């Protein structure tokens, strides 16, 4: 019996999306990053193009509450200063992108005004040269009030505006069109809704090369299997030629992984799980690696050590040893 390589012929490759615009393209980023382009499943170099994943580090525009100690240690010196926080991520930890979360927009909490939020965005844009993801607070009314101003503040920078949902996509889509940004299509762990949002976005004029997909995820031990399968299915659909699911995918890793008890609890509270470091950091890195295996293109991460580990793993994943 002779062995033949079981090569799949995929019908399409994943759409390429460029995040960030340099001066040449009307922005101020030091470099733009193009994601997507996968022509096969992750890491199957024998079969086709497999682009390297991008790591975005998350920056909050105000001091986070209730963060576990390992994260506090990493970031407490830059709390409340998103520009400094972003700078630290890029300069010290080598973040490819910054994911700025405008948590201070939350109308039930700080309720920062659209203009204040726009200032946060501008400050971060000035502080770092990498491309940005800008995330609203999740309150539809507030986000829709804020987007026109915040998006305008980053006009031309090709940031990812996050996020458009099935019941709230029109304002953010209009802002992205007006200010030349990319839209994050968010759906609640449902491949059909994900596709529906893509169709709705394209119906209002957002082009495929300006859409990134995001399935609400879950951390390791907390629903990661749903996300894993949905990401796999989405990627298979995209490679199978479904235009509405062929966009690159983003996974939120940090906040999901650190929500899980196994990452959050210190050793005193769970001695049977051993020391919180490296446990919690491994939890985040393992969550990231699982998503990478399902096809994620952008990871949004928290802990610098987890970022380092994932980089190291990625390096190994793109290295050929004896092959096959």
């Amino acid at each position, binding site marked *: 019996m002779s062995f033949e390589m079981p090569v799949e012929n995929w019908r399409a490759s994943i759409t390429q999306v460029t995040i960030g615009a340099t001066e040449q393209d009307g922005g101020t980023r030091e470099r733009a990053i193009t994601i997507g382009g996968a022509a096969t499943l992750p890491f199957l170099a024998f079969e086709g193009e497999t682009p390297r994943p991008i790591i975005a580090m998350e920056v909050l525009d105000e001091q986070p509450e209730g963060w576990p100690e390992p994260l506090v240690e990493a970031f407490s010196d830059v709390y409340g200063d998103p520009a400094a926080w972003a700078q630290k991520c890029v300069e010290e930890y080598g973040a490819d992108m910054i994911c700025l979360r405008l948590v201070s927009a939350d109308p039930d909490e700080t309720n920062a005004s659209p203009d204040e939020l726009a200032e946060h965005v501008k400050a971060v844009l000035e502080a770092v040269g990498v491309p940005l993801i800008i995330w609203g607070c999740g309150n539809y009314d507030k986000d829709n009030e804020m987007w026109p101003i915040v998006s305008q503040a980053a006009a031309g920078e090709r940031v990812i505006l996050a996020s458009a949902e099935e019941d709230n996509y029109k304002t953010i889509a209009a802002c992205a069109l007006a200010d030349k940004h990319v839209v994050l299509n968010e759906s609640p762990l*449902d491949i*059909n809704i994900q596709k*529906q949002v893509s169709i*709705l976005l394209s*119906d209002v004029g957002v082009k495929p090369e300006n859409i990134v997909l995001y399935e609400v995820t879950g951390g390791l031990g907390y629903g990661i299997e749903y996300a894993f399968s949905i990401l796999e299915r989405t990627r298979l659909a995209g490679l199978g030629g479904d235009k509405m699911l062929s966009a690159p995918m983003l996974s939120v890793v940090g906040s999901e992984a650190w929500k899980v008890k196994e990452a959050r609890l210190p050793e005193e509270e769970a001695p049977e799980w051993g020391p919180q470091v490296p446990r919690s950091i491994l939890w985040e890195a393992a969550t990231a690696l699982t998503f990478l295996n399902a096809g994620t293109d952008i990871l949004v991460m928290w802990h610098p050590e987890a970022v380092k580990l994932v980089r190291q793993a990625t390096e190994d994943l793109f290295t050929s040893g004896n092959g096959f």
Partner: protein
Amino acid sequence: MSQRTIRFEPGGKEVSAEDGERLLDVAARAEIRLRADCGGQGICGTCRVELESGSVQPLGSEEEMQAADGGVLACQALVASDAVVRVPELTAVGEIPALSEAQLPETVAEQFLSMELPGPLARRIEIEVPPPTGTDTEPDFERLQRDVVRACPDCTPLTITLECLRELPSLLRDGDFTIVATAGDFRTVEHIIDLASPPARSAYGLAIDVGTSTVVVQAVNLQTGEGRAVSTRNAQIRYGDDVINRIVWSQEHPEGLEQLREAILDNLNLLLGELREEENVEAEDVIGASIAGNATMVNFLLGIDARPIRRSPHIPPAALPPVLAAREVGLEIHPEAPVSISPAVAGFVGGDISAGVLATGMTDSEDISLLVDIGTNGEMVLGNRDWLTCASCSAGPAFEGVGIECATFAGPGAIGGYDYDPEADEARLSVIADQQPLGICGTGLVEAMASLSRAGALDRGGRINLKFSSSRVRESAAGPEFVLVREGEQGAPRELCIKQTDIENLIRSKAAVHAGITVLLQQIGLRPEDVEHLYLAGAFGNYLNVDTAVAIGMLPDLPRERIEFVGNTSLAGAYLALLSREARRRLVDIAEGMTYLELGDEPSFTEEFVASMFIPHTDIARFPSLMAKSGQ
């Protein structure tokens, strides 16, 4: 409690009532039928009456009782004094066409009805019995039996009620041994239920369809097979929109089951009364009833606790109840008349579906057929001569207009066709019986949804586009809405407006149907294009446009000539079973041989459902004809 007298005008009919009784119920008791399209839930406003004198108390709030233009809603008004109530013309129920009467494919009609002795459920025959002689000394009953059996060699054994036996000797002798016998087929035995002197009066039977939202009664002349049908809203709606809510009602109220039974019996007897009056028929001459209905409705009609249907694994308390006497059931026809009930397959696939399969003739062919019956539940049956499989999904009552404010029953004044022209900002309506538009029926709702989606007033998820350039779109406290018909537009007495939640309900309904079809096909291992005949039965009658049904993504995108509207197949099957013994037998075979698929146990159903919650569908590739049209 005080006894009050309520007089209804015009007509001056008086009826006594107690304080606290609903006007709607008082009117029903007076045999004055008011429209109450929502079933008396205070939603639709169609039971508006005017109070000429006296006073009423609101059932809920004063506001809820008041009708838009003066007057009160009879379903929300409680008797508080003697009163004179005027029923406006629009409120009185006039001619309500039966929801698409039976239309049998010729082959099916021929198969069951053209034979010499089709074997109706009940028959009335004039028999000349040879008088006894010295050599022929057979006793009276056996003598009669011999002759009746001779008239029908393959009939079941014949027996007789005691009352008839008592009358037999004198009737035979008074009539020179010619006698009119009425016999009813009780499946295992035939009963002589009535004896009379000649001449034989015409005998009638009933075909009845008991649906969750709609009840249809058809009176059939058993000699000619001709019939006339009338229909009404199922009065049980006041206890719940769908079967689950009604089962819950029956469980949570000590009198609940009896209330449900009475509601449906009142419905049937009222319709029956109307038919008898029109056709001038005595109750004694209605000698059989053939009933098809979903399992819950049938069990409620019989006063049987339906809770096994609610609980997994959702079995009916009885799939094939015995043939009962009308007096046991409470039907106001000949008390001993046989009442035959079409057998159920499962808790959510009732005898209405067995009847539907029978009526379409799908079991006669090798071709693969799909019967889709859309009511408050959507049922689908897939199969051919060799095999049958079925499933049920909860479509919700939206297609029947229940729970939607601008909706109405498919009667005169109902908008059955709707097309919105965005250029002219005009709605084109077709109204049943060409009257002024009072409301929109299920067909109209589906057409409206398709039309608004085409016009861009809805996005593909069915959300009303607030930026749509027409003043018809507006935002109310309850969310966005679209004015389908402006007040005065084409003579409309009031504005008709569809809300975002109404559209969501409609989309859910069509998605459930499409997902049910898809999963049923998948489980068998067939593709939609393997279906050679798609029969659409139920709520939409024959009004719905096939293209519209496909355009909203309710039905699979088959070549249009394969899709056929077949009307009320439940009634058609009940009609066949009324007239043909073979049909009654075949119904049992159909129900027993059908494989039920529980969609709730199929993980793919939820997924297909979500995928179908889009216009027409998330996977547009499944609708090639629509893709071709939109140039995608």
